[in-house]
């Protein structure tokens, strides 16, 4: 199997912080995996993600995408090859849904027909009727619909790697579960490598083929959801699992 993403001793610190945001992280991720990165705020999970598309550059260490050290590739080119979606979505309000989806294909100078066909195909993929939604503006969409468009936009240029930074963080519980299922379905059909950042342990274990647990800039454990649940590597992971168990008890007490 191909290695899609490799982090080699990646370290990144920010001025004025007492510890490195990301501290000597080494991970090897295969093509087609759905990796979730789980951690509380300040754990370095978002920093790790943003280094993957060079929004930040590491202080030391290397990041290799499909055998290529991204330090040697122009930032703009790296980013155009990678899909990127965030919690706030960031749809451009003055552009229609179709125009938002077309942003990266336009940057890549695809021809008009190909862009239109792609937008149509993607709207269907994310479960929104193209005829109804293409010409809408973001202000006319619900939060869940906006996030679907955010995903479609990130997928537009058919990137091999998708970076997702808590994309469902601001969405209500029911829509969130639907979107999680759909994201899993989308991933299954595309053979893309997903890096998905979340602070929700249920989401991380449900979606990930493997899960990276981070705390204070370090990787505590990188394993399958089953192994993490069965054999937590350290106290931090244990406490995460226990918090889940306690929630379960709470529910049992209620019913």
């Amino acid at each position, binding site marked *: 199997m191909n290695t899609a993403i490799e982090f080699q001793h990646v370290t990144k610190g920010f001025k004025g912080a007492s510890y490195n945001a990301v501290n000597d992280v080494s991970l090897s991720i295969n093509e087609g995996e759905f990796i979730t990165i789980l951690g509380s705020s300040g754990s370095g999970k978002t920093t790790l993600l943003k280094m993957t598309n060079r929004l930040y550059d590491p202080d030391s260490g290397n990041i290799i995408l499909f055998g290529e050290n991204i330090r040697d590739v122009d930032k*703009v080119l790296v980013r155009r090859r990678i899909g990127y979606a965030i919690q706030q979505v960031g749809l451009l*309000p003055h552009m229609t849904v179709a125009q938002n989806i077309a942003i990266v294909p336009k*940057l890549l100078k695809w021809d008009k027909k190909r862009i239109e066909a792609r937008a149509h195909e993607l709207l269907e993929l994310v479960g929104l009727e193209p005829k109804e939604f293409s010409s809408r503006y973001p202000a006319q969409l619900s939060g869940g619909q906006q996030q679907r468009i955010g995903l479609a936009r990130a997928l537009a240029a058919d990137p091999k790697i998708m970076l997702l930074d808590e994309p469902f963080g601001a969405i209500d519980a029911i829509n969130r579960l639907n979107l999680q299922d759909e994201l899993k379905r989308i991933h299954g059909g595309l053979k893309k490598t997903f890096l998905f950042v979340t602070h929700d342990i249920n989401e991380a274990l449900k979606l990930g083929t493997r899960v990276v647990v981070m705390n204070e800039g370090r990787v505590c454990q990188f394993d399958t959801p089953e192994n993490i649940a069965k054999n937590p590597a350290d106290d931090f992971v244990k406490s995460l699992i226990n918090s889940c168990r306690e929630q379960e008890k709470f529910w049992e007490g209620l019913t």
Partner: protein
Amino acid sequence: MGEIWSNILLYFENNLDAYLTMLQRHTSLSLRVLAIAICIGMPMGILCILFRKQQKWIVGFFQVLRIIPSLAVLVLSIRLLGIGMGPAITALAFLAIPPILMNTVAGLEEVPFFMLETAKGMGMTELQVWIKVRLPLAFPLILAGVKTATVEIVASATIAALIGAGGLGQIIFQGLSVRRTELLLIGGISVAVLSLTAVLLLDLLDCFLQRYKRGVST
């Protein structure tokens, strides 16, 4: 009252050509000043964002200028620049730049950081982020600044008649000097109507450009 009304009618009967010339001069003076103020104010606002350290100085300088009453600026400019259209344009531009400059700065600063970062994350170059994201998102506030400036220009252009730039101010100053109320009314109302018309046109433009906010699809 009836006498004033008939005097007004009489004025238009005898002086329609002169009136239209003054109206045309007032409008063209205002438009020229507005164009210059936009061409200077907007780029300077952008520079303020690019060079944050200099922002205080640039904004401060124009804010001080703004405190000086328009009349004083115009009268002072006679000393420095002489009389006529040129000095009037220069003096009025100084009054119109601050609202445009400051609203440009405010509009650009208001664009949320995550918007800029997602745009970069999608692979836009710095320039593309400016053209496709920053400026369009700042535009509503910039336009609001242009509106403020327009009102100020149209009103202050009246005083520009004092330094020989012509315009509707001529009627008012003539009315003042010969104590004819109907001239004051004609001049004053004309300036007010001109100003309202300008604002109305800009409002329409604003509505059209911001239709996405109300959620009306094309």
